[in-house]
């Protein structure tokens, strides 16, 4: 069975799609990815599509599914490297990829993911003192 490789880098997962995916391969990627998010407790997914010459409605829908599934599993998804011709075609096709965050380069995509993780860390830290205060007042 063919698979698209998924690389793990700290709390993120990286995917570089380098082949023209047939439909089953795209669906397999969805399954593999959700499994890996849970297995590693990943907080971010970066999908590089710079090698893709075509993104049709099926692949567009798959990217949207991946973003939604990841969100439910507490991970953010960023799609990077879309070719200009692909962007023009997708919009004319009627697919503007709602709900999918995009960045032009892998570097920018990683910045977005890191920013997300830092923000959620800060939110957690901000909540901590309150919990501590509640705890002490009960004693």
């Amino acid at each position, binding site marked *: 069975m063919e698979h698209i490789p998924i690389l793990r880098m700290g709390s993120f997962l990286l995917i570089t799609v380098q082949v*023209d995916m*047939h*439909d*089953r391969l795209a669906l397999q990627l969805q399954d593999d990815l959700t499994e890996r998010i849970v297995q590693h407790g990943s907080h971010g997914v970066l999908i590089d599509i710079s090698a893709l*010459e*075509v*993104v*049709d*409605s*099926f692949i567009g*829908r798959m990217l949207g599914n991946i973003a939604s599934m990841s969100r439910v599993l507490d991970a953010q998804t960023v799609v990077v490297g879309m*070719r*200009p*011709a*692909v962007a*023009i*075609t997708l919009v*004319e*096709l*009627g*697919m503007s990829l709602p709900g999918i965050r995009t960045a032009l380069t892998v570097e920018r995509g990683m910045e977005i993911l890191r920013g997300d993780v830092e923000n959620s860390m800060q939110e957690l830290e901000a909540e901590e003192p309150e919990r501590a205060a509640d705890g002490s007042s009960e004693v």
Partner: protein
Amino acid sequence: MEVLKSDSLPIRTSEDMVSVRTSVRKFATELRFGIVDQTKIVTAASEIARNTLDYGRGGDLRMEALSNGTKRGLRLIFTDRGPGIRDIERALTDGFTSGNGMGLGLGGTRRLMDEFEIASKVNEGTTVTITKWSR
């Protein structure tokens, strides 16, 4: 109108769709379409090929490189012997789907190409013909 070159491909499996995209891209490149038009043509071909496979139970694609004297064109003819489409107008509306898609296939494809024709007979099959001309 002159047919400069033609070729046919089967559309029976999801792997065949990869061959469809590759072959259509090759024709479009040979006809010297720009990168944006190439991408639109290949994407349109992919959308219709999926319909042929999913709703038409498979079929064939005929590709024709055309010349009308001043312009070059690429015509793609998708034929299946599936159940046919009962209400073509409705099938062309964005958002209409009888399967598990988003219903962008036919309407969206029409926007990507210059010419779009669909002929269908219930219980006999469907033929979709799409054409793009060089600018």
